[in-house]
């Protein structure tokens, strides 16, 4: 069956092979165009990411500039004018009179930055260790994968808290608030490398047995070059899928840590910090302080997750 489709595609005249042309003509993009869920998720995710990147331009106020804050504006409900100042805010204000919409945009920035960086760290670490385990094999494989197994026995949020605690303990007090974000990235990144390593190892073992690797070995290419130039590009598609799903998980992990008070400090609040602040006011009637950040987190995590699910199905030839 594959053979027949192949002869067919082979007979289709080659288009000008620019990279954009190739990307737009790829089966992946074709599948994307035909999946409403993927397109909506991508649109939501893109909107949130753009809003976060351009937060200083989009946000009506800078919520962390004390000069622009007016305490009298505190607890303004969404869409209504403040009883004292007459100012009105889309999504209301919190106890300090900060505009919730603006804090969400700035909070998104922190959440996304931590999420992306943590996934990048986990991915780089996981790819390096997974490639070594899969390609070199033997004792290297045993040691790396047993370490991964041990780490998997702990819930990743616990690992993240442990790393966070240790890292915080060894940073000097005066740098703690500045370093908090980086510590958070380190904690989430280190707690998440295992699944990258496992997938890369599995794929690398499959690729290693293929003849193009033998051909490179015969030329005499060094192992490192074979791993990076030949094996790595061929194990990247499952990695991309995991990275997307991990991004949603990392954003949620960051929110969880921040919610528990061990993450982003109140001076640089992420969505999780905002939710933690907001839950204090939930039962006194100021629901909007919690509700809108929580909705944003939900929308972001859901969009990224759905996109990851779609990508996994689209890249899996067996499901086609």
């Amino acid at each position, binding site marked *: *069956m594959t*053979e*027949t*489709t*192949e*002869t*067919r*595609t*082979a007979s*289709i005249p*080659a288009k000008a*092979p620019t990279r954009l042309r190739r990307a737009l003509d790829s089966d992946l993009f*074709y599948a994307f165009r035909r999946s409403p869920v993927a397109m909506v998720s991508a649109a939501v995710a893109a909107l949130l990411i753009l809003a976060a990147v351009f937060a200083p331009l989009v946000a009506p106020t800078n919520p962390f500039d004390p000069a622009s804050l007016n305490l009298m504006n505190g607890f303004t409900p969404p869409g209504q004018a403040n009883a004292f100042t007459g100012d009105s805010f889309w999504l209301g204000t919190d106890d300090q009179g900060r505009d919730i919409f603006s804090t969400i945009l700035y909070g998104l920035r922190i959440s996304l930055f931590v999420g992306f960086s943590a996934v990048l760290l986990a991915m780089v670490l996981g790819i390096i260790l997974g490639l070594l385990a899969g390609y070199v094999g033997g004792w290297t494989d045993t040691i790396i994968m047993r370490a991964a197994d041990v780490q998997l026995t702990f819930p990743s949020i616990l690992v993240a808290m442990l790393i966070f605690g240790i890292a915080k303990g060894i940073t000097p007090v005066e740098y703690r608030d500045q370093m908090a974000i980086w510590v958070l990235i380190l904690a989430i990144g280190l707690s998440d490398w295992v699944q990258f390593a496992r997938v890369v190892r599995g794929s690398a073992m499959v690729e290693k047995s*293929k*003849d*193009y690797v*033998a*051909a*490179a*070995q*015969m*030329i*005499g*290419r060094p192992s490192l070059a074979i791993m990076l*130039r*030949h094996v790595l*590009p*061929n194990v990247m598609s499952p990695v991309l899928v995991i990275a997307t799903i991990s991004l949603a998980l990392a954003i949620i992990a960051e929110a969880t840590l921040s919610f528990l008070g061990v993450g982003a400090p109140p001076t640089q609040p992420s969505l999780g910090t905002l939710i933690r602040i907001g839950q204090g006011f939930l039962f006194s009637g100021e629901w909007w302080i919690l509700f809108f950040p929580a909705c944003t987190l939900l929308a972001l995590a859901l969009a990224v997750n759905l996109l990851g699910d779609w990508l996994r199905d689209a890249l899996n030839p067996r499901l086609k």
Partner: protein
Amino acid sequence: MTEPILSIRNLTVDIPTRYGLFQPVRNVSYDIRPGEIRGVVGESGAGKSMTGNAVIGLLDPPAFVSQGEIWLAGRRIDTLSAEEKRSIRGKEIAMIFQDPLTSLNPLFTVGEQLVETIQLHLNLSADKAKARALELLNAVAIPDPEERFNQYPHQFSGGMRQRVVIALALCSDPKVIVADEPTTALDVSIQAQVLDLIKKLAEDRQIGVILVTHDMGVIADTTEQVTVMYNGEVVESGTTDQILGAPQHAYTQALISAVPRPHKKVHRFPRVTYGGRENAFKIEDLARDWHKPEASQSGVLLRAENLTKRFVRKSALLPSNRTYFNAVDDVSFDIRDGEVFGIVGESGSGKSTVARMIATLHSIDGGHAYFDGADIAAMDKAALAKYRRQIQMIFQDPFSSLNPRMQVGDIIAEPLWHHGIMPRGKTEPRVRELLDKVGLARDAYQKYPHEFSGGQRQRISIARALATQPRFLICDEPTSALDVSVQAQILNILKDLQEHLGLTMLFISHDLPVVRQMCDRVAVMKQGKMVEVNDAEALFAEPREAYTRELLGLMPKLALLEN
């Protein structure tokens, strides 16, 4: 003449794709009578399997039958509902697939699978179903059916498994069996047994068999009627004698002329012209600026002395608890300058392992291999680099031997800059020249491997192998994944390389007629040991060893093609 049991009339299968409508099967008609075996032959993509799938109602969506009719014993079956098709499938039409490993469930014993299928179709009691299962195992000539009944598929060898699959197909006394490449995954000796079994069963039980295959030898040995398909259409249909002996259609003639003959060595295979758009391989251009390799000191380019390769059978922490088996056991041979040395053997005989040891892909566990007098295992880094420049390999599977994520130009350039023949970034003119000489179009340089057919990919492999101007070429089953017409082209290219460039070759194959056509001297391997080494002519004319005679006896009798 008896009435046909199965009749296919003007069958067309449509697959709507994003590039438009694709018809893998167009207007195909043929009949099968009870007890008759009809071979359906053609190259990959000819639509032969798709026709078989349409008959048993197993077309994968989005493929569907858009025109035509399929009649089974006077009943039209292509228009039935999915439910009704399922009740026919397995009961009236059974299927034998290519890979016996995947068509049995590894979690159930063979007996359980047979009894389940029998009960599903025939509504028998457990005892009666078991009795029938044993009877079937007996019918497919499995020894000790009582004992085998309770064993799992992994306890059966490949050939035995395929017998079980055939027994499964026979469970409900089907009228028709569709056998899709039933012996392609098997060794020749087992292939012959399985084909004999299918022949006998068809005759004894009056079952009509559609035998889908790409192998002319299987057709010649087994079938009475042949349908030749090309590009989704039937080009010719008739009795086997008539099609093989006096083909009428140009495509059939071209196809048959490309089949390697087991009994007579030809200088070159005739060029298959039908539909052939392949560019010529420019051997004269290539030879012009080729540094003819200097002769080796002793006239022997590669000498293997007692080569041994051990693989771990059972690994353990303590070395004393480990067990090994010898994949290659005490193998010695000489390969002389400029000759093509063949190694034949069935799967598991260790022939590929020998090639990989010489290619430095496997370490050598015992014995020595000398290349132009130098021990490969004892080479230092510089000597090894020089050695690797002089040997190149062409692999079996052109789909896995090229990195799918690299452009063809980069693939061929890698050995050039790695060996310092030219600096990185300056390789493009040389690579383009090589691509042109192996007969690929100019735009091949920036394409990716998946954009090429199997034969074109094998040409890319050849271009990569020739980039460093090697003295010694290892070909490990270079054509066994290719269609017969493409095989003929690639074998011609290899013959050209040997003749015009003075290359020495180690040619590994399980296919005796191919070895016969290619090799000057041949070694026969069995279970890691070398059975016989002799000149090809002598070996094929009067084999000395019993095993060699056995292997030769299993070669397809293509006597029909000789006139």
